[in-house]
């Protein structure tokens, strides 16, 4: 365990650590562009230079990311020599950068912007024209590449080689005209994790087409959530407009209640720092057309009457069966159990199945069960059946993905669902539910890790929280 001194603080590094890793572990900041804790060390941006004291009193300047921490080393992260080096490096990095922050989606969360203010702050000293490169290159259907903004840190290239293993990106040409390009076999377009390169990019070179010019990031706030795309339950941040920056035009009102983008939350126990592209598409999943009011056999009904009718049907049933949603949160499942106890025979349901073209399962993150809380259902309600019993006289269907042909003839149907679907009108009573972004709760993933998601938006009118609804469905008859 080498002991070294960084900026006068004596720290103990783990064996085999670099100065960069040791400093980070002890909360000492050293700037970096190309380095990433989960990727290999290319040492190409040269911004992480630190000074190391030499025996003769001099100072030797080298990059921290590739410098093994050694016993007795004395490191300076901000000596005059280091500052001058960093300033020179920043001059180089911004030399051919277009500095078009005004129209760049990365502005506000751009490492280059931050470092420029921190380590250089001066106007360009160059008198020569900047080099030009492709300004808008379609890397895939999802990602657009701006080669002029690229600082050639190769994080994206290394991601596709070391993490997603698609080998979808590479560097073409050399010198200051070298550019990132996808491999000719189209592997990057098929990479199920491709959007991670957008987060990895320290500048605005790689941008999501879905988010392109949608919003300045400082208008948005990130609400921590859990991706319901599969039983991995990756931590995600759902970005939506801050209350004080809500759009006022009625034409744009819908955007106030929509998710603008999704980024991963680093969680070593679940997803590391990555998420797959399905998580990035959550705005589409949550943005589907909603069911906005209760129905009696397809006819709109007042909310109270619908709840009372459902309560009566449940009370009258002799052999009621509940088809439980694996998209329900642990809180909702607990509320269901508290309200009904063992009143229902239970059937577990997979709300979502793999879609055509979707990666079913891989070695990195994606799991075959495309529902977030199947493990939670087992934990809260115990083992459930898989098929609706033939003698059931009432079926309570909770959530999507149920084949109503499995309902025995003559059995009543109470259907709880969040989205507009043809089946909604077939139920004897249909009640609209809230979706994940309108409530908070927990999911338990396949490995038993429970993660919390927070509410982003207010409950739309006419929609019910399942957690509160179940209490009202207990009782006798149609009376209040």
């Amino acid at each position, binding site marked *: 365990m080498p002991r070294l001194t960084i900026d006068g603080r004596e720290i103990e590094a783990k064996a085999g650590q670099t100065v960069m890793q040791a400093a980070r572990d002890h909360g000492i900041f050293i700037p970096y562009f190309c380095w990433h804790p989960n990727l290999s*060390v*290319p040492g190409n941006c040269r911004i992480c230079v630190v000074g190391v004291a030499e025996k003769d009193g001099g100072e030797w300047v080298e990059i921290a990311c590739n410098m*093994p921490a050694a016993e007795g080393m004395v490191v300076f992260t901000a000596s005059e020599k280091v500052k001058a080096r960093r300033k020179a490096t920043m001059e*180089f990095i911004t030399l051919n950068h277009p500095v078009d922050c005004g129209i760049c989606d990365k502005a506000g969360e751009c490492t280059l912007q931050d470092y420029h203010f921190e380590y250089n702050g001066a106007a360009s000293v160059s008198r020569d024209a900047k080099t030009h490169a492709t300004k808008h290159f379609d890397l895939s259907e999802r990602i657009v590449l701006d080669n002029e903004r690229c600082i050639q840190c190769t994080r994206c290239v290394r991601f596709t080689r070391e993490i997603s293993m698609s080998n979808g990106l590479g560097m073409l040409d050399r*010198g*200051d005209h070298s550019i990132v390009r996808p491999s000719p076999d189209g592997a990057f377009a098929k990479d199920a994790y491709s959007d991670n390169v957008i987060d990895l990019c320290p500048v605005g070179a790689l941008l999501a087409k879905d988010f392109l010019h949608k919003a300045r990031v400082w208008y948005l706030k990130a609400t921590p959530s859990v991706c319901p795309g599969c039983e991995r339950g990756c931590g995600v941040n759902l970005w939506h407009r801050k209350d004080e920056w809500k759009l006022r035009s009625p034409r744009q009102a819908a955007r106030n209640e929509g998710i603008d983008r999704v980024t991963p939350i680093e969680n070593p126990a679940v997803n590391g720092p990555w998420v797959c592209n399905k998580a990035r598409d959550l705005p589409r999943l949550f943005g589907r057309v909603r069911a906005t009011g209760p129905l009696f056999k397809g006819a709109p009904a007042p909310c109270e009457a619908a709840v009372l009718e459902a309560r009566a049907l449940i009370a009258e049933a002799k052999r009621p069966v509940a088809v439980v949603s694996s998209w329900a949160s642990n809180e909702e499942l607990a509320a269901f159990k508290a309200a009904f106890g063992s009143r229902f025979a239970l059937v577990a349901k997979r709300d979502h199945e793999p879609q055509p073209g979707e990666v079913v399962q891989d070695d990195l993150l994606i799991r075959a069960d495309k529902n977030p809380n199947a493990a939670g259902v087992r934990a809260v309600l115990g083992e459930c059946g898989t098929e609706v019993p033939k003698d059931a006289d009432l079926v309570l269907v909770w959530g999507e993905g149920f084949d109503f042909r499995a309902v025995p003839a003559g059995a009543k149907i109470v259907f709880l669902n969040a989205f507009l679907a043809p089946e909604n009108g077939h139920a004897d009573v249909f009640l609209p539910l809230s979706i994940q972004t309108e409530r908070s709760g927990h999911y338990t993933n396949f490995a038993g890790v429970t993660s919390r998601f927070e509410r982003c938006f207010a409950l739309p009118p006419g929609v019910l929280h399942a957690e509160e609804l179940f209490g009202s469905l207990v009782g006798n008859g149609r009376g209040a």
Partner: protein
Amino acid sequence: MPGRQLIMNFEVTPASHTLADYRARGGYETLVKALGMAPADITKEVTASGLLGHGGAAFPVGRKWGVMKPNPGEIHYLCANADEGEPGTFKDRWILEHAPHLLVESMLITSYALGVRHAFVYIRGEFDLPYRRIQGAIDEAYAAGLLGKPVPGSDFALDIVVYRGAGSYVCGEASGLITSIEGRKPYPRNRPPRLTVKGLFQKPTVINNVESLANITGIIRMGAEEFRKVGTAKSPGTQLISISGHIAKPGVYEVEYGYSWAKFLDEDCGGMLHGAKMKCVVPGGISTKVLTRPEIENLTLSHESVNPAGSGLGSGGMIVIAEGTCMVRLLQVLLRFYHHESCGQCTPCREGMGWMHRIIDRIVAGEGVPDDIERLYAISHANDGTTICGMGDAAGFATVGILNKFRDEFEYWIANKRSKMDGRLECRA
């Protein structure tokens, strides 16, 4: 003849590169002697000889070898660096063309000393005859049973593969070279780890210049003590110098270390072209700082003599420049080369080379400003020791070397929008 000769010590004939002729000169006899020695003793002998690397950095060969710990069963590699890309340098080409078997025998001895089973010759793609000669020599050695299976009378066997580069300056950098052999873009690698710890295919690898390797046979044949009698105490042996530019007799010369520089130019190389006056000389490839004629007057061709003068013998690619040559245009040529050859991996070189090239282009176009000279200094300084490989430093040395000594030409061009020297690079009769 500039001193004693160790490599160019035979008459070049149309057949002198063949195995038969090489054997007639005593070829592959040293291999038999070496195989009778313990591998560690060979390394000891090479270390004792004080042989310095001939690739440019003059790193002691023995010290490089000493890091390798030959373990039976563990894979080690040897690469001969024949990617002779330093402008002005064409000395390895002579060895590859005329003494390919000397290289093969040396590689056999080196591989035996370092526990290597597979060796590579990385040859630049532009070399045609040298490629055919070295490949021919290796084919001959295979046919003669020297390669591919145990050398007669021992259990040591070696395979040599010739790998042709696709043409890039950084492929001559040791780590770029092995990355290229691995089939990837030749981005140089960060140290640590050293290549002798983790090199080709992540295995300990020794990469030596062709000329360094070619000396091994001689060292083992005559012994370190005998070898040290050639050259000087600090620079033992000889150096192949490829001389070009405004010189009467350009070509490859084997020079014994310690030989007078002025004598070498004036007598051995026949003096200046068309009897011109000498302005300056690039001692060893364009990445070494230029020296003016008065500066070299009393120097000898040895590391201990040239290094204190602020330059180095480098790769032995000497370029002689006559009075009347425009140093601004010369620097423009150099910077265009460095810009073109920067691999683009790390920031200072990637951006700095292009920047310097654009500045010098602007000066030549008559749009320079006085600040540009300071800017060139600043960029050179910012590249000094900050890049992954030595290319950034090299370009900086070359630029600073010319700017220091011929600053007036740059100032003249910036002030008058034209060359002080007619913009000439050629030497007229």
